[in-house]
């Protein structure tokens, strides 16, 4: 594929103490500037894949190329500068004692000069709307705010790709919106490539493309609209479908006529109305 920023070719992986493969012959390409959602239930291999993209695991077979760099022990630090990660637990990735120290941590690791560091910390916090919290300590922040700081820490390093590994799964609904809106605006501004790994299909619905993983393999991929047409199949994979899709199914079960599984409430209502009520 042309202009792939990430190429995963026929990758398999096995944890040292396990017989089963966590990933089996996975091939995936991510376009520059794309928002890709990788969904799957717990144990589907999605977290293993995330860790591999950051060089926290290496494939047993196959190759991974990120921003033109083949994943290897020599390249791993360069790759980590290109691809930043936001993890699930907001507390367990907050290294600094205050917001600004945390954002600076990654810059310090990469030997950025002090003066430039100050500027980059400020700039990154502006982008996530957290400048008012510069000297705040993490235990005074909400989960959503901590995740926004984690995002700032990533973008301060000016990566090409940001990878969200279930970054919203421990947040309340307000925090989830807060984080997703932040990601959306940064992606648009910076032209970043976003990969979000999630079991929340509402979150996946915001992506350009969805990949469904099951038992370590790619089960299917497509646009969110296309994926959600598979409602019953998704449920058997242990995934939930967004409300309008579920509502479509329930209405169809009640004998109403629908042209397809709908994706937004407005379209669904319109469809129900025109096909069943308008005479």
């Amino acid at each position: 594929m042309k202009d792939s920023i990430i190429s995963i070719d026929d990758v398999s992986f096995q944890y040292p103490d396990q017989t089963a493969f966590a990933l089996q012959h996975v091939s995936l390409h991510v376009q520059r500037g794309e928002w890709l959602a990788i969904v799957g239930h717990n144990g589907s291999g999605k977290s293993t894949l995330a860790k591999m993209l950051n060089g926290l695991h290496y494939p047993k077979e196959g190759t991974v190329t990120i921003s033109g760099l083949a994943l290897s022990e020599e390249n791993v630090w360069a790759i980590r500068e290109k691809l930043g990660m936001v993890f699930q637990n907001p507390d367990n990735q907050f290294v600094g004692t205050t917001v600004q120290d945390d954002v600076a941590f990654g810059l310090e690791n990469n030997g950025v000069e002090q003066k430039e560091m100050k500027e980059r910390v400020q700039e990154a916090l502006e982008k996530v709307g957290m400048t008012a919290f510069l000297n705040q300590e993490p235990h005074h922040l909400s989960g959503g705010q901590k995740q926004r700081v984690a995002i700032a820490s990533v973008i301060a390093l000016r990566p090409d790709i940001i990878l969200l590994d279930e970054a919203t799964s421990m947040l309340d609904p307000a925090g989830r919106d807060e984080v997703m809106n932040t990601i959306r605006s940064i992606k648009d501004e910076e032209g970043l490539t976003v990969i979000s790994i999630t079991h929340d299909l509402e979150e996946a619905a915001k992506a350009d493309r969805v990949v469904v993983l099951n038992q370590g393999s790619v089960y299917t991929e497509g646009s969110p609209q296309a994926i959600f047409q598979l409602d019953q199949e998704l449920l058997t994979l242990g995934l939930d479908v967004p409300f309008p899709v579920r509502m479509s199914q329930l209405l169809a079960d009640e004998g109403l006529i629908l042209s397809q599984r709908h994706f937004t409430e407005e379209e669904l209502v319109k469809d129900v109305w025109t096909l069943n009520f308008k005479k």
Partner: protein
Amino acid sequence: MMEKIILGRYLPLNSVVHRMDPRAKLLFIFGFVFVVFLANNVLTYALLGVFTLFVIVLSNIKIQFLMTGLKPVIWLILFTFLLHVFFTKEGEVLAQLGFLSIYKGGVIKGAFISLRFLLLIFVTSLLTLTTPPISVTDGIESLFGPLKRVKVPVHELALMMSISLRFIPTLLDETDKIMKAQMARGADFTSGSLTSRIKAVIPLLIPLFVSAFKRAEELAVAMEARGYRGGEGRTKYRVLAWHGRDTAALLVLVALAAALFGLRS
């Protein structure tokens, strides 16, 4: 319960003491520990007391607040006092309690030592109350910097300290949560014999350890993902700045030491 402890807490106020370089404060306290031992009579202790009071006033921290923070150690001070009162046999006898005699020298010595203790607690509390913990760590890292040459892992130790500081509130919260969850299941942490109380802590400690290990593991992964690979080639975000007032503070301490030296008997 935990919220009453002031040692290790930081009060973000604006004062000249707050603005001092943490290295100067650390050196000052280190020096003060020795200077306190120079006092040995009423005059020198009075001078020390007035001096400490002056520093407290400079820091803008209410003395009542420091007093409430004394509560956990008040028994220790009292115990030290009584120990001297009962076991020092100097000067005239003030009172006779059965087989115990109380000597004037004992009371004076007890009072002096308690006061010395008190002053040390005040001044060290002032350090943490006026300095963000991260600055204390930075100060220590910088002061011990030369030890890197003899292969002391100063950077790693400082990082460990700052991460511990960062996680103390998180772990305290967690302790509170687990404690409440176990109390809701009928656990009793406050009554019963010593052995039953020690046993009661197990349902608290095990979940706490399990979670701390999990946190440590995740944190290590997150640090690696953000490019942490040891102190080599690392820059520092926080830069310490030594001002005239820092030098002045240390000179004042030297002057105090000289005065005490002159006035001690």
